[in-house]
């Protein structure tokens, strides 16, 4: 319990990491709900990876342009944000456009995007020794070096996503569930699809900057699947997924601090354990 007191203390050295982790934990499942319901889980895998490739490209730019290491480090956060957001938004809009046309294999496209993005990240990593250590931390999900700027950026971006989701939930739900009905009611399906995908892109890129691609995907998917096992209606499905993500991220941080483990992987393993527990409980109740 001492470690819990440490974490909850306002003077805790890693408090920004706790806050960021919990914010990402609450926010990612809110957009993950739409990825799961629209059967775009592969997009949830590919987007964080594309986002981290964007970070890698952005951080390589100063090296390619021959800027000094100090100069590059000063602007590293801004560059990473631009790279992450830019790559994610462009990728999601292209993938959404191709999905809308409905030709070819969506899984194939997403799988290709994922594997090419991963390979590109590794290539860039191997060619940039300056940023190598920082990138590795990002890829492993080391949520320990969160600045006030990063925390603020995460909070603002996720608050925007939450507000848009709250205000336009019925439009986003309708175009996802029944596109033909939405069109007959005069809803602009393309516009609302774009809003949803931009929202997913923004949330994913901010989450990747904070916790890395693996953990971002974990938060996008696992709390949503767990909530889906338990929820009786849409409202509780969304609330439960978000609460599971937020609470899971806090508990994960606590366990990682207690046992001196990397935070991100601890979060994901804990979420996986909760999912299995929920599955077992549901099966037991059904019997």
């Amino acid at each position, binding site marked *: 319990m001492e470690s819990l007191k440490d974490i909850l203390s306002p003077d805790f050295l890693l408090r920004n990491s706790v806050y960021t982790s919990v914010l990402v934990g609450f926010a990612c499942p809110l957009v993950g709900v739409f990825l799961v319901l629209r059967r775009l889980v592969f997009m949830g895998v590919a987007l964080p990876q594309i986002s981290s490739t964007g970070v890698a490209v952005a951080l390589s730019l100063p090296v390619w342009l021959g800027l000094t290491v100090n100069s590059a480090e000063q602007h590293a956060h801004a560059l990473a944000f631009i790279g992450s957001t830019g790559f994610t938004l462009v990728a999601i809009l292209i993938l959404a456009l191709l999905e809308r046309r409905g030709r070819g294999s969506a899984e194939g496209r997403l799988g290709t995007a994922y594997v090419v993005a991963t390979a590109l990240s590794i290539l860039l990593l191997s060619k940039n020794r300056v940023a190598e250590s920082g990138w590795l931390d990002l890829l492993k999900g080391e949520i320990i070096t969160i600045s006030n700027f990063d925390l603020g950026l995460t909070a603002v971006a996720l608050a925007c996503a939450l507000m848009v989701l709250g*205000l336009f939930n*019925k439009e986003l*739900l309708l175009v*996802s569930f029944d596109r*033909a*009905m939405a069109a007959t*009611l005069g*809803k602009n399906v393309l516009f609302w699809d774009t809003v949803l995908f931009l929202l997913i892109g923004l949330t994913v890129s901010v989450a990747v900057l904070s916790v890395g691609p693996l953990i971002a995907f974990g938060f996008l998917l696992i709390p949503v699947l767990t909530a*889906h096992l338990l929820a009786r*209606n849409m409202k509780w499905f969304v609330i439960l997924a978000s609460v599971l993500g937020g609470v899971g991220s806090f508990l994960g941080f606590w366990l990682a601090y207690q046992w001196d483990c990397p935070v991100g992987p601890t979060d994901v393993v804990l979420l996986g354990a909760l999912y299995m527990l929920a599955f077992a409980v549901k099966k037991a109740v059904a019997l």
Partner: protein
Amino acid sequence: MNQSIITLENLAIGYDGQAVLSGISLTVARGSFTAILGANGTGKSTLLKTLLGLQPPVGGRLQIGADGVKPVFGYVPQAIQLDPLYPLTGYDVALMGTFGRVGPARFPSRAERDFVRECLHATAASGFAQKKFSQLSGGQKQRVLIARALATKPDILVLDEPTAGVDVAATHALLEFISQIHQERYLTVLLVTHDLPLVRKHAQQIIWLHGSAVLHGTVAELFTPERMAEILEMEVG
């Protein structure tokens, strides 16, 4: 009864500029009950999508409504088209019918929510309101979807094979109910179906698609032995 609510003049329908059917000229009267018949692949769904405005006509003229007033469509899709992954209740699904009147960033008022309950009651679907939509039977789902269509306060009720996957007893009950609300609310009904006995019993007008031809007429005109033999022979051929 004779005022037309849908007018097709030399209409061509299809995808990507390629016509599936062309030269369609007919009118659908306000308050009529029209069945759209035809074998699979004859263009029923394409015609329906074009009428609903989901895809543009390839050519010709399509006029929906009269005097510049655009009618509201209450669309009832095949329940099988809706993904069972969504944990929506019957009430959640029916509430979507109000979304055309409730603008973005607004929520359905108490009056709208009460109206949705009335629609569920009218379709004998009140008992399914709090149940998961995905767990309802075919007939129960169709009742909820008809309640959703009624919640749009429609001028035209469009039903795409509402009895697909529904057992015989539920099919008869469903069609009796559709006929009843058609008469009570003076709704224009467009029904896509394969079920000829039901069409004979409930429909007034028929649009029959086969091959590259479109026949349009009353039940009495098209359901004569001579016309039926002609049509069925053409379909077999």
